[in-house]
């Protein structure tokens, strides 16, 4: 900030002081450095979340990341392997399994063919399992990847790699990087919002951490019942009038101090308080579904078990995107089915499939899918071999890092296609290996960000989401 800006703020103190019941839109615009009608020399207070242009023209403006924590089984959902039937109940020859890194089972474990039925869907004819009919119904919007791979075969390191590009904890996560790179289109909601359902992911809050970026970029957890954001509700006895009066007094005194010290941090602080006040009004509004049609609510499965919690989150995600929230992450845990996989996987699909399918349909109906990238992914996949911990239980599957499936839709992604193939037993990739870093590079690319240039200097090094790897997979956009 230069001297002129400093003076300009000094002379504009009346702006704050006499704008009655709080800041109006113009004053807010003034604060966050946007042009105000008729004003030519608007001083800017550095807002770290002001919208920023990317490196090139984006295809997508927002991301909804459906994070399936715990690693869902690609073999039972997305990647049919009829050849496994021949091996069912037998161990595979050692020559096939010697390179596998497995967490719990030994390479000699017996093969578990999928009991699921796969059918082609849509004009594209992509095959999906009968566990996910609603997602399958969007086949022509979905670009399915069957050739994902990762290095990490344990949950927390795997989730860390998926979210932050490194198995080492402490790096910023993808939502934080995107907020850092593009800022926020919303003036009264956070740039990066997290919605959680199920029983809590292995990575906990490290999945939406700002890492070494400042806390401006952390994922803000939004709860779908009660107080949506921590500390959002006024303390008991504080009506909106009292809250406004408190804020006005804080602002006046902060301005006094600003005048005395000239420290622009105080101007930012004033702005943060105003945004907080707006957030107090805007966040609960998101939870008010009364203006949603009955058909919409039914399509998502709101108000119906077992879909209700996840349906609420999916609908909230759409509403947030409408309000300009940059990055919404929906974490659902856990898909870690080491035992009784058919039963447990079925249950998670019953919870999540209908809402996820509805989200795609709803975004499309409203013309939002073009500008919203939807990602469905877990941290790794599961083995074609079964896992038995006790003889008296049905089998599950172990962790499998060498190949798994994810999908993306919207945001410029060409639907109705499948990228990559795995070998006939689902042990490894046959064609088009796509690493986690490639997926991350591609997501950033869709948003107009060059993954090699979105960097932050920390501990003497320029860090980036894709660490030292990553290639944009142009096939997604073909």
């Amino acid at each position, binding site marked *: 900030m230069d001297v002129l800006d*400093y003076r300009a703020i000094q002379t504009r103190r009346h702006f704050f002081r006499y704008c009655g019941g709080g800041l109006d839109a113009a004053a807010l615009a003034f604060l966050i450095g946007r042009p105000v009608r008729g004003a030519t020399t608007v001083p800017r207070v550095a807002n770290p979340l002001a919208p920023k242009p990317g490196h090139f023209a984006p295809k997508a403006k927002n991301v909804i990341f459906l994070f399936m924590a715990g690693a869902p089984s690609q073999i039972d959902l997305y990647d049919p392997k009829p050849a496994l039937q021949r091996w069912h109940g037998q161990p595979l020859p050692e020559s096939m399994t010697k390179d596998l890194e497995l*967490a719990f089972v*030994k390479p000699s474990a017996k093969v578990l063919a999928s009991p699921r039925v796969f059918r082609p869907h849509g004009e594209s004819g992509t095959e999906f399992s009968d566990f996910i009919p609603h997602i399958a119904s969007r086949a022509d919007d979905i670009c399915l990847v069957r050739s994902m791979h990762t290095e990490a075969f344990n949950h927390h390191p795997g989730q860390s790699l998926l979210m932050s590009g490194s198995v080492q904890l402490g790096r910023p996560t993808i939502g934080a990087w995107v907020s850092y790179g593009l800022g926020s289109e919303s003036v009264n909601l956070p740039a990066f919002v997290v919605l959680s359902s199920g029983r809590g992911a292995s990575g906990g809050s490290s999945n939406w951490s700002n890492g070494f970026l400042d*806390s401006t970029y952390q994922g803000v957890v939004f709860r779908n019942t009660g107080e949506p954001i921590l500390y959002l509700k006024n*303390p008991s006895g*504080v009506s909106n009038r*009292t809250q406004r009066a408190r804020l006005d007094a804080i602002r*006046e005194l902060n301005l006094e101090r600003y005048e005395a010290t000239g420290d622009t*941090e105080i101007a930012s602080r004033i702005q943060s308080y105003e945004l907080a006040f707006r*957030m107090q009004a805007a966040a609960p509004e998101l939870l008010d579904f009364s203006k949603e049609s009955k058909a919409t609510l039914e399509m998502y499965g709101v108000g119906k078990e077992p879909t209700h919690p996840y349906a609420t989150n999916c609908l909230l995600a759409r509403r947030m995107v409408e309000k300009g929230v940059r990055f919404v992450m929906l974490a659902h845990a856990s898909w870690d089915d080491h035992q009784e996989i058919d039963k447990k996987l079925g249950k998670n699909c019953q919870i999540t499939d209908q809402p996820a399918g509805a989200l795609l349909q709803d975004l499309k109906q409203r013309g939002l899918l073009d500008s919203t990238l939807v990602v469905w992914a877990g941290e790794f996949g599961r083995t074609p071999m079964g896992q038995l911990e006790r003889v008296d239980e049905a089998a599950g599957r172990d962790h499998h890092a060498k190949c798994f499936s994810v999908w993306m839709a919207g945001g410029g992604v060409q639907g109705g296609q499948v990228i990559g193939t795995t070998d006939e037993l689902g042990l490894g990739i046959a064609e088009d290996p796509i690493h986690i870093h490639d997926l991350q590079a591609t997501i950033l690319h869709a948003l107009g960000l060059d993954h090699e240039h979105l960097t932050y200097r920390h501990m003497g090094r320029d860090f980036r989401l894709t660490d030292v790897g990553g290639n944009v997979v142009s096939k997604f956009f073909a």
Partner: protein
Amino acid sequence: MHRRKRIIPGLALIAALLLLRAGAAQEPPGRVDFAEQIAPILEKRCKACHGAALQSSGLRLDAREAALRGGYSGPVILAGNSAASRLIRLVAGIDKDLVMPPSGERLSSSEIELLRSWIDQGAEWPADSKGAEGDERKTDHWAFQRVVQPTRPPVQAEAWVRNPIDRFVLARLEEEGIEPSKPARLETLVRRVSLDLTGLPPSPADLEAFLAAPSSEAYERLVDRLLESPHYGERWALHWLDLARYADSDGYEKDSERPYAWRWRQWVIDALNRDMPFARFTREQVAGDLLPRATVDQRVATGFHRNGLKNREGGVKIEQFRFEETVDRANTIGTVWLGLTVGCAQCHDHKYDPISQEDYYRLFAFMNDIDEVEIAAPMPGEMGPYLKALPNYLIRRRELLEKNRVYELQPAWEAQMVLAADNPGKWTDWDHALDAVQKYLDNGEGIVRKPRSERTDREQTKLEDHFIKNYHRVIEKDFWKELDWVSLREELIRLRADTPDVTYGRAIANADPGRRTHIHIRGAWNHSGIPVEPGTPAVLPPLRLDGKHPRLALAEWLVSDENPLTARVAVNRIWQEYFGRGIVPTPDDFGRRSPGPSHPALLDWLASEFMDSGWSLKTLHKTIVMSAAYRQSSARRPDLEQRDPGNTLLARQRRIRLPAEIIRDAALDASGLLNPAVGGRSVRPPQPQGVTGLAYAGSVSWNSSRGKDRYRRGLYTFLQRTVLYPQLVNFDMPDRTAAVCTRERSNTPLQALNLLNDSVFVEAARALALRILAASGGDTAGRLREAFRLCLSREPDASELRHLQEYLAAQMAIFDSEPESAAQFMPLSVEGVDRVEAAAWTGVASVLLNLDEFITRE
């Protein structure tokens, strides 16, 4: 920062191989001449990366001895055996993931054939061929030069100078023709120095006494008093905890609690309060276990190495994670003492600094023999009751275990466990059971393998407890039911809870025999290269072992006079806390990528004084806060906004937002709620419901502490890594996954919501309101002045007073019309004050606790 190597297409590989064969078949070459035929190939195609200037992967191909010795993976030329020589495998593209040279054209088939023949013919390399000089690395980089006490520069304005710091600062300002700022107001200075030295605002008494008779001597007495306060140790422990990546839980999925992590923190607070010399502070933390006749405290100090994360997730490979832990330990030493990003050399030679991958694994080797142990580390007063209760406890425990067949069943379980460890993959259920022993019991496999007679009582007890809890993994369900050890466990837990115990410490011990260390190719835990011995980076002064254990020798080397880094790095970090920016602006990187010091002579003067003072931290702190540079006003200088926007030249002080923990402390202090007890275990202040629900599978519970424990300083907040206390996260406490030298200072709406609405701060506002109403008579202006003094350590000016009066009136009007709100906002009643008024004063208190100035040290 290795780019993943491209896989060369299969067809090209086959073609290349075919060509080779064809070439070989057609014309078997005669005797190859090294100088004529081989040296030119190496010169042209290899030397850029494997020459005198750069030895990628530790390999040098322009000098005989080095070339025949090989690189980090071992020898690359096996005389007489070209087929097994790595050089050939790489240039011929036989290993599919790596081909050399990595860019440009491949070697031609005739070149490859020449190399093959040369090797098969014995790889003769005439000794008189050029340059086999050592690879001793020299550098003129400033940070690697020994610290020399600089001469103090002359200045014009002698009167401004209070101590040598000022000379260095002023000389530079005079050079630029800039005047320093005027001194800060006295109230500001007192609040600043109190927050800086103790993390608490000044007590009203201290402030009043100082303002009544301000003088240079009075300021010095205040500084001395603050340095003697036990809160000094708390404030500066905070700084050290960031570096030591301290937390109260393991991190990762399981994120198990570490009930005794605080014992190490206690050691830090005590050491700082006693002004333990930084040299000794270093020795005890790095190698306290190896000191002659190591005391319990010295062993507790080694808990420094135990602060890293621990992954107990089911599928984790023990050796892989031990490797990662050792990497973390080596990197932490590099950051904290050397200010170097040594971690960059885990996978390859450092890109910017003269640190080779070999240097890295030599440093790694110091940490590679660490075993984790738990030791009894009683706090004062614990031993008596413990010893008194012990005999009876042991008898009761023995009876219970005897009755429940534990002694009968455990030996066979142990024996089978050892068998399983020796025969992995043979018995699936035992593999799982062994995994549990390794994961949940520190050094678990080691304990199982020890004969009963060699285990400590603690080890035996822990093993028994583990056995009782985990036996079900290897037996039939029916037998498990019959044993009913679930009830046994409950009984044991009750017995334990009823018996006084001592505190334990998380320490380290030396593995015996020491493990060999290898270079890990591309940093992979399971890809070993050549063996290396412990040693310090070649560019730094050599390590003298003198028969000592290497880790102890390292500790002494870190704080030796010749080491150019430790003192500079330490004083720079401390300087940063006082001025908001280090003299070197990158405290975590003193390498070539750093912009370097803004005041090189000042940095060296501070570093040499620090060493000369016997590494006294308190002396260093005092020197800084006594300087005129420190005492300047922090107001912005419009005249310098263009010339020195970052205040690099130090023509003023800086307003610095308080660290997260100290924001909490300041609010509790102003309200009078603060429990000033120093040290002890971690506590759980109230936090909103549902925060811990985001941890893995409901594994974390948060039962808020009761009574005075609710009001302890932020430093003592229990740090559950996967779901950190929200107020600390909102105000940028590092997540403690790795050493952090500089905290971010963000400014966000969540912070506003936190201070406005968090019940902790609302409770503080209520208590502050009571304090204001109790402290003075009925005069509103007097009360407002008192409130201002309590929160900001100063008097309000007329305009500030007016704003507060207006707010108070407006708030009373609101509460008059919302009487129920008043009662909710201020449920405590105050004698002689009506409810609406008390509630409005609570509003005033809350406004003050939310001011930017309140959470800032100016």
